[in-house]
């Protein structure tokens, strides 16, 4: 195997205008879907987690709890590919919705899927916060939702940040299934070079390299964020006047 030649052929193809554009389009799509998916996921996950830990005296929280159970069961119980296929090829035609771009469907499905996972992460985060924090807020006359949002959830997020980073990494890598619904992501873009040259060695190795770089970048960012949020910890509290 002549690695030098293979690399040269691959690099020439990638440098060509068409494939370069395809590659950057794929890279942008991958990052965009993962980031937006995570944001939607955190939002949905937080809502579900709060419903889950809510005291259940009344009927409404009980009903919401059941709905959340069903939601989590569906989105954790089926593979992401199946969800994408159903959303794009079954739900959209059945509901008669036209003109939705595949990438938006991807973002929505990624968000909803990750919401199911984040809800459990967030719930453990909320449970890790001392019960006294909620009591202190309520004793001041603040409502349940306000105390949750201003006091408990920020502390919970701090505790679960490493796990949320995990979720983000999973999402980045999962984007490779988006080719099923015709979205150009990193996998499709580099795969196209492989099919053009009848040689997949370099494209696949390069693909792995790009994914690793992305994941390392996320790891780095999460660490930075952790440091930033640790300012209320005793060791890091440099801001004492």
């Amino acid at each position, binding site marked *: 195997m002549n690695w030098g030649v293979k690399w040269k052929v691959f690099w020439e193809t990638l440098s060509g205008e068409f494939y370069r554009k395809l590659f950057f389009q794929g890279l942008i799509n991958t990052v965009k879907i993962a980031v937006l998916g995570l944001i939607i996921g955190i939002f949905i996950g937080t809502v579900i987690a709060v419903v889950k830990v809510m005291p259940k005296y009344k009927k409404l929280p009980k009903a919401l709890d059941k709905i959340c159970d069903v939601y989590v069961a569906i989105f954790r119980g089926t593979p992401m590919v199946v969800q994408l296929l159903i959303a794009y090829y079954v739900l959209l035609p059945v509901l008669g919705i036209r003109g939705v771009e595949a990438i938006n469907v991807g973002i929505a499905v990624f968000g909803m899927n990750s919401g199911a996972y984040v809800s459990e992460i967030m719930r453990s985060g909320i449970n890790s916060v001392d019960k006294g924090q909620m009591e*202190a807020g*309520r004793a001041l006359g603040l409502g349940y939702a306000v105390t949750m949002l201003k*006091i408990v959830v920020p502390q919970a997020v701090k505790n679960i940040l490493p796990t949320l980073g995990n979720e983000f990494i999973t999402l980045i890598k999962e984007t490779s299934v988006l080719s099923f619904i015709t979205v150009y992501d990193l996998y499709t873009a580099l795969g196209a070079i492989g099919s053009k040259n009848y040689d997949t060695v370099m494209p696949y190795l390069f693909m792995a390299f790009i994914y690793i770089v992305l994941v390392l970048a996320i790891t780095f960012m999460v660490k930075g964020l952790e440091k930033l949020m640790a300012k209320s910890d005793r060791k890091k509290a440099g801001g004492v006047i």
Partner: protein
Amino acid sequence: MNNERPLICVKNLKKNFDDVMVLEDISTDIRKGEKVAVIGPSGSGKSTFLRCLNCMEDPSGGNIFFDGEDIADMKVDINKHREHIGMVFQQFNLFNNKTVLKNITLAPVYFGLKKHRAERCKNFCIAVANLFRKNKKPLIQITQTRKMIKEKANERAMELLKRIGLEEKANAYPSTLSGGQKQRIAIIRALAMNPQVILFDEPTSALDPEMVGEVLDLIRKLAEEGMTMVIVTHEMGFAREIADRVLFIDSGKICEEGSPQELFEHPKNPRLREFLSKVL
């Protein structure tokens, strides 16, 4: 006896956790300006009694009238009443993610802004209705801006911090403070809401012995200023010194109540006698 309506009126309060009876039948009145100390062996239900007073634990039966309204009723908006009932916890429970200043101003700013929002919303409704009215209704005068509300709360918080000599800690996080400092800040956090009564749930039990003094001093000063307070405590000397009335609770009932002198010097109830012989 004065005939003034008591601030808190507890009638036949009952509380059980599933099938464990914690409070059997408690009735008492707390008048404005009165300092009530609650003593008793551990597990007797005194903390539960205190937590029932602001419905941190929902009573299983009976009534609690605060300001003439029954807050034991589940339909009552309890948050509205909790604004006027301060509470200080054994474990301080300062908000760990907020600085000391934010801890104190959080609730006052929140309620100030909420009221501000409500007034503006009302004004908007009046203005819209005025379009169709012949004789226009005047708008509500809003004197404060959002910024002013925040500044006022900050000023008040700094004033309170100065009072306990911790103004240089305003921007510190709770994790950097000592237990005594945390508890004093927790007390002024309750005070910043201008409550009508403060409930103290064993305020010194989690403190190092040398820090107990500073916290008790602050509570004593508040008592002298005429703040109504209910204190669950194991500090018998302190209870005796500041309380107008002492309740001895054992196995969910008030076994004896009276002035500190008669309770500590001439206990009638045998359980109280036994309890005092152990702790004094």
